């Protein structure tokens, strides 16, 4: 599998700036029980697979650009340099899964059978103009079949006019912004994957409605689409209840600390602290919580709930902290012996020797790649159109490392593959799942429109 680079990345000069924000949901943790997954059938290339392929091909148009007799070419754009480089671990996970699929599952499944994945990811440094250049390079020069992920809201927003005009699938984009699931009219070629920020905010709202129906809430949020989506999603979800937001503080990714904001929030004495921040800031906010007199119920958004991040602060003073999960965490002992986890741990070392298997972003990359594999299984023809059709007809499709009971579901009216999560609380050094998986679409109805 080739990896190429490309031109872009601006001076990654992290100087200052833009830490990332957008948070693509990073990895998370556990859950139990292996979903019966998709263990993709090993390619029995020969006879019957072949026949089936032929049958399909008969009713299918010519394969799209990027599909040859023996390869399927995919592209990705990620920040491998600069302030948002933390997300650079994601393509490592994706690449590891696809290489694993090539080596052990016989390449791509279904109508793509017999073809090896070729995955080219490049560095956009989280810069929108670089992402545009890169995506154009992938589409025009590399002639990829589809973009398997662009990362972050701004780079994705900068490129989606182009991909939709070119009618190139831009699938499973690594951002939870709702806008990427709501504009099927103008941007039907773009679709997200991870639970969107509004859905996750609803999980916390539901948790409070069930357990603390008259709580006062103090919120720390990143001042961008990611923070706003969470905050507004939460606000909408608690509308009409006795839960009240009594303090809000925002921060910029260029701020060195959130100490001042936390001081103001603590002053409110709210019952609940809703922590909508990326990992460094989340750690600071957790550190503040651990040391101050203020002892709120701490809701930590999934963007920062990796056990590595929590462990950096120290588990002991944060016991009982609440988060929402949809993936299994390799550091969680409850997944020992779990089939998905075993596959992951057995293979990640071989196919991504330099990656830290416990890194939530590597886990996420593996999971989303397996989800893409599952999507290909559902696709009826080796064409871009067919791929997009499949993205809108997912029914209970499982993927690797998803929590038990969490599967992909979409329809013509629902372009959010994952909208269910499960509440977990920090017990000891691990997240303990609480209650049932909550399907937010069932509880709160479809996400209406982009907020912010």
């Amino acid at each position, binding site marked *: 599998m080739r990896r190429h680079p490309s031109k872009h990345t601006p*001076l*990654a*000069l*992290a*100087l*200052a*700036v833009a*830490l990332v924000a957008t948070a693509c949901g990073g990895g998370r943790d556990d859950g139990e029980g292996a979903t019966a997954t998709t263990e993709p059938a090993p390619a029995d290339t020969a006879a019957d697979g072949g026949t089936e392929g032929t049958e399909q091909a008969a009713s299918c148009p010519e394969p799209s650009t990027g599909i040859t007799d023996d390869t399927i070419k995919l592209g990705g754009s990620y920040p491998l*340099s600069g*302030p948002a*480089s*933390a997300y*650079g*671990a994601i393509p490592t996970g994706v690449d590891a899964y696809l290489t694993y699929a090539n080596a052990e599952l016989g390449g791509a499944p279904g109508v793509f059978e017999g073809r090896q994945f070729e995955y080219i990811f490049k560095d956009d440094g989280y810069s929108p103009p670089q992402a545009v250049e890169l995506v154009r390079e992938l589409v025009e020069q590399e002639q990829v079949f589809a973009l398997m992920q662009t990362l972050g809201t701004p780079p994705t927003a900068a490129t989606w006019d182009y991909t939709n005009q070119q009618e190139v699938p831009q699938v499973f984009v690594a951002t939870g912004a709702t806008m990427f699931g709501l504009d099927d009219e103008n941007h039907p070629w773009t679709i997200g994957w991870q639970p969107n920020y509004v859905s996750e905010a609803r999980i916390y709202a539901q948790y409070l409605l069930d357990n603390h129906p008259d709580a006062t809430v103090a919120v720390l949020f990143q*001042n961008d689409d990611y923070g706003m989506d969470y905050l507004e999603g939460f606000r909408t979800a608690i509308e009409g209840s006795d839960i009240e937001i009594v303090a809000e*503080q*925002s*921060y*910029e990714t*260029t*701020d*060195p*600390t959130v*100490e*001042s*904001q936390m*001081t*103001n929030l603590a*002053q409110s004495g709210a019952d609940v602290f809703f922590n909508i921040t990326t*990992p*460094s800031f*989340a*750690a*600071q906010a957790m*550190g503040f919580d651990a*040391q*101050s*007199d203020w002892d709120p119920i701490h809701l930590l958004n999934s963007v920062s709930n*990796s056990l*590595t*991040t929590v*462990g*950096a*602060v*120290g588990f002991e003073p944060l016991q009982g902290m609440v988060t929402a999960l949809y993936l299994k965490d390799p550091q969680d002992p409850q997944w020992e012996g779990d089939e998905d986890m075993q596959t992951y741990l057995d293979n990640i070392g071989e196919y991504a020797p330099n990656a*830290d298997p416990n*890194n939530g972003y590597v886990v996420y990359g593996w999971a989303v790649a397996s989800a893409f594999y599952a999507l290909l299984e559902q696709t009826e023809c080796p064409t871009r159109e067919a791929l997009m059709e499949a993205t809108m007809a997912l029914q209970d499709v499982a993927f690797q490392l998803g929590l038990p009971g969490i599967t992909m579901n979409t329809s013509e009216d629902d372009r959010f593959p994952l909208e269910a999560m499960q509440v977990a609380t920090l017990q000891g050094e691990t997240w303990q799942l609480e209650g049932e998986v909550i399907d937010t679409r069932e509880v709160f109805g479809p996400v209406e429109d982009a907020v912010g």
Partner: protein
Amino acid sequence: MELFIQQVISGLATGSIYASLAVALVLIYRSTDIVNFAQGEMAMFSAYVAWALIGAGVPFWPALLITLVGSFIGGLLVERVVIRPVEGRPELTIVIVTIGLFIFFNALAGWLWTYQVRGFPSPFPQRTLELGPVRAGLPALGIVAVVGIVVGLLFLLFQRTKLGLTMRAAAENPESSRLVGIRVGWMLALGWGLAATVGAVSGVLVAPILFLSPNMMGAVLIFAFAAATLGGFDSPVGAVVGGLIVGVSENLAGTYVDVIGADLKIVIPMAIIVGVLLVKPAGLFGSPAVERV
């Protein structure tokens, strides 16, 4: 009122973080006459070295000592190997080289230790001091104390020792310095070594509060620039005072001025700097001779 005091204290704590890096910036400026954009990243790198040592089982204090010595040697080497070839070239060239170093160290740390957020043990007890309604974390107070000590030591070095005199001379007038037999090249290298050591102190002090990651110092650098500019770029005391003013003013503006709010609080220190410089172009404590890049 209680909130006000609390915000002032929090501002002083944050300001001392800026000050700690600003002192290293001032140090290298005084001893080599250049602005080192990579100073923060070198500090971050030093903090990682300490973290890795502690992770490998070395107790805290020996690890710190090794880190400081290592940083000194590292700074020295960076000057000899990377800066030397462009010595005597226009300042802008050297600025670009330090920007190159910035990117290099940031990426190297990410590559060696990943971008995951790490905890870092504080040399100070994780306790909070309470005076009536006012609370101040010991780690933050510790930074103020250590930065004060560092500035005091630097004052002694520069004003009371022959080595300090020689370093200042080499930075101010390399040509005349050579004519009295000073090995100017080594003095510059020594300046880098010392600045890297002070930077390492900053990194180790800051890491327990900001949490260790390759991007830990990026934002701090901008504020450290602001602090040094405000104080006068050649004055360590100015750097500390500047840092504290920047820290407190941004907190108060963010908390009490509604039009500003948290999202624009960065505007306040920047505005103060521009204002101060227009009235007193050398900064609060600087000497007027400082004009070059």
